[in-house]
């Protein structure tokens, strides 16, 4: 008793210390769940082979194929983009079979984006440490897990020892009071938060999202929020588990069952941050004041309200910002002070680990139902997993998209990273529900505007960047 109050992060961190951090050595931190995909694992398995090491806990490891897999309807190994990608997929299959790691390969009905399938299977649970050779591992923090991306060397560390060397990060509370207005989504909220912090503002910190707005978000919305924590440079983002979390988990295949579930919930309830805890930093936002957001530049921190104006470098707060804004304007081909609303777009991409879950697709379908994708616009809808795809088809969402003239595709990362054939094209402008608008992220020369599924769908219908609230008012009427 009398122990110092602790944050959610502290509790998860402390519970996973195999060895505490000392002045000279980092902590040895235990990993509960290690997710693996084709792009960042081959060299790690090679490292194990070179040292004659085995995978320590294949039963706490799960692999899938998502990044370079084709998403054309009926995709198979035959339609993989090139030999290099095929070889990478073959490497993963061989490595998994050699080490006894369960794998959901291309064609499996549980395949999907790594950050979509972990949660939907119930593998991601409160209080866990979850890692993956992928920066958007932060997604899993939505469950009150400590989840973060690692490089390939560290993938080898976890494969071999189930542990990582880590120094303790700082904590930052992001408190969001009030409720989001209709038409304003978790995506808009996280874009606003990144805009506030800047793309490096979270460096060295684990973010904990708190407040009424966060409590009222669904699990899928919390995943969208935590997913993009890395875009503020944060090590991870977390939301304390509550009834919303437990309800989501209750029926999932990997979640504990019956009495074991009740016991787990009792433990999970203890994970929230204690009253009186001091975070290293605090940031406060008012949800009510937020509008739908869209990025205009070349990093996720460069966003404006969808009806706002692109900033003028002349008004930047310092030289560094002026330089960044000017560079981004040049790449994007926009003018200072220009409005984005009304700008014609070439492509609309609905997908990625940020916004490809059932509720994202349903939100977009609400806007598209009875409408057509505008002439000259290509819209791709890429569900996050085969399971999401089937659930959407059961609800007839695929019909809504197809009838509107959008492409209904197989699960995968697709145009979020453009490692397969799904590319925007040089100079072309895309509204994308993904998480990165870096130069060339969606293919060489691609220009990306990040936005919510609602904004993306509204833009698809009109062919120009559109505030979804204008269309939502119509479809609600």
């Amino acid at each position: 008793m009398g122990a110092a109050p602790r944050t959610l992060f502290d509790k998860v961190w402390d519970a996973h210390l195999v060895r505490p951090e000392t002045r000279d050595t980092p902590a040895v931190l235990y990993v509960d769940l290690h997710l693996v995909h084709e792009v960042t694992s081959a060299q790690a398995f090679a490292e194990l082979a070179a040292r004659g090491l085995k995978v320590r806990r294949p039963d706490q490891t799960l692999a899938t194929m998502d990044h370079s897999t084709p998403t054309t309807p009926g995709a198979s190994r035959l339609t993989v983009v090139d030999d290099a990608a095929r070889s990478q997929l073959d490497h993963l299959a061989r490595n998994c079979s050699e080490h006894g790691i369960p794998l959901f390969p291309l064609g499996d009905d549980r395949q999907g984006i790594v950050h979509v399938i972990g949660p939907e299977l119930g593998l991601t649970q409160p209080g866990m440490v979850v890692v993956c050779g992928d920066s958007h591992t932060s997604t899993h923090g939505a469950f009150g897990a400590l989840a973060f991306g690692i490089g390939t060397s560290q993938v080898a560390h976890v494969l071999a020892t189930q542990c990582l060397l880590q120094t303790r990060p700082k904590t930052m509370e992001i408190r969001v009071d009030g409720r989001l207005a209709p038409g304003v989504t978790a995506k808009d909220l996280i874009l606003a938060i990144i805009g506030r912090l800047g793309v490096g503002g979270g460096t060295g910190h684990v973010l904990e999202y708190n407040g009424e707005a966060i409590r009222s978000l669904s699990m899928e919305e919390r995943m969208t929020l935590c997913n993009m924590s890395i875009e503020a440079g944060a090590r991870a983002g977390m939301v304390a588990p509550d009834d919303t979390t437990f309800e989501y988990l209750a029926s999932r295949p990997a979640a504990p069952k019956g009495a074991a579930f009740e016991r787990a919930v009792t433990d999970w309830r203890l994970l929230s941050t204690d009253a009186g805890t001091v975070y290293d930093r605090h940031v406060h936002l008012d949800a009510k004041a937020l509008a739908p957001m869209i990025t205009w530049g070349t990093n996720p921190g460069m966003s404006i309200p969808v009806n706002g104006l692109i900033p003028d470098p002349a008004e930047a707060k310092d030289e560094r910002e002026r330089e960044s804004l000017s560079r981004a304007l040049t790449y994007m081909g926009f003018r200072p002070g220009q409005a984005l609303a009304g700008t014609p777009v070439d492509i609309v991409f609905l997908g990625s680990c940020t916004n490809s879950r059932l509720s994202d697709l349903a939100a977009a379908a609400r806007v598209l139902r009875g409408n057509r994708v505008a002439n000259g616009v290509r819209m791709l809808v890429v569900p996050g997993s085969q399971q999401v795809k089937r659930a959407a088809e059961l609800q007839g969402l695929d019909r809504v998209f197809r009838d509107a003239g959008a492409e209904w595709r197989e699960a995968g990362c697709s145009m979020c990273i453009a490692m397969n054939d799904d590319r925007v094209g040089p100079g072309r402008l895309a509204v994308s529900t993904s998480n990165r608008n870096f130069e060339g992220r969606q293919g060489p020369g691609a220009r990306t505007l990040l936005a919510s599924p609602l904004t993306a769908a509204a833009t698809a219908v009109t062919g120009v960047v559109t505030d979804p609230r204008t269309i939502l008012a119509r479809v609600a009427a």
Partner: protein
Amino acid sequence: MSPRAPIGRFTSHWVLIPGNDIDTDQIIPARFLKTTERTGLGPHAFHDWRYQADGAQKVEFPLNQPGAAGAEILLAGHNFGCGSSREHAVWALQDAGFRAVISTRFADIFRANALANGLLPIQVEPGFHGVLVSAVPGTELTVDLANETIELADGRTTSFSLPPFSRYGLLKGVDELDFLAGAEPDIAAFESAHAARISTLAVSRSDA
């Protein structure tokens, strides 16, 4: 790769690649991540800033300038290496001949990846960064890991700091995985005290 050669002191001129928040998609674009090797990525470092669509070099890009040849130090803007966790970014820079990157801030995952591979992420104050940016091109800089200093030929110097464990490991050639493997008794004890929370094997057998 292990066992790693120790890193000590070295002297080199640098290449300045201006711009803040340079993300790992710029350092190595995603379409080059299909390799299953750690080597061979050097020619693709900064690919889309370095080459035209037809493959011709963009002469104005710093890496394509004659002064860049042989440089072992990359001088970059604030918040270098943000974005994706791809370790390929570090491998590409090393394959292109770099042994250190100097910036005023590094993204967390990039820094960890760099340290794991022996590419030194040297964080300096904006003031000294400005000194380097405005120095005469071709000026040499000595990186001294043991003393955690960098020093210009004219004697101007500044210090930097790496996590003590990383510094020790890089100096002695001790590798992180070996160190972790040394924690085996504690890992085994932890596992016997804490039953695994999930089984991916079980969930893959059940029809989810």
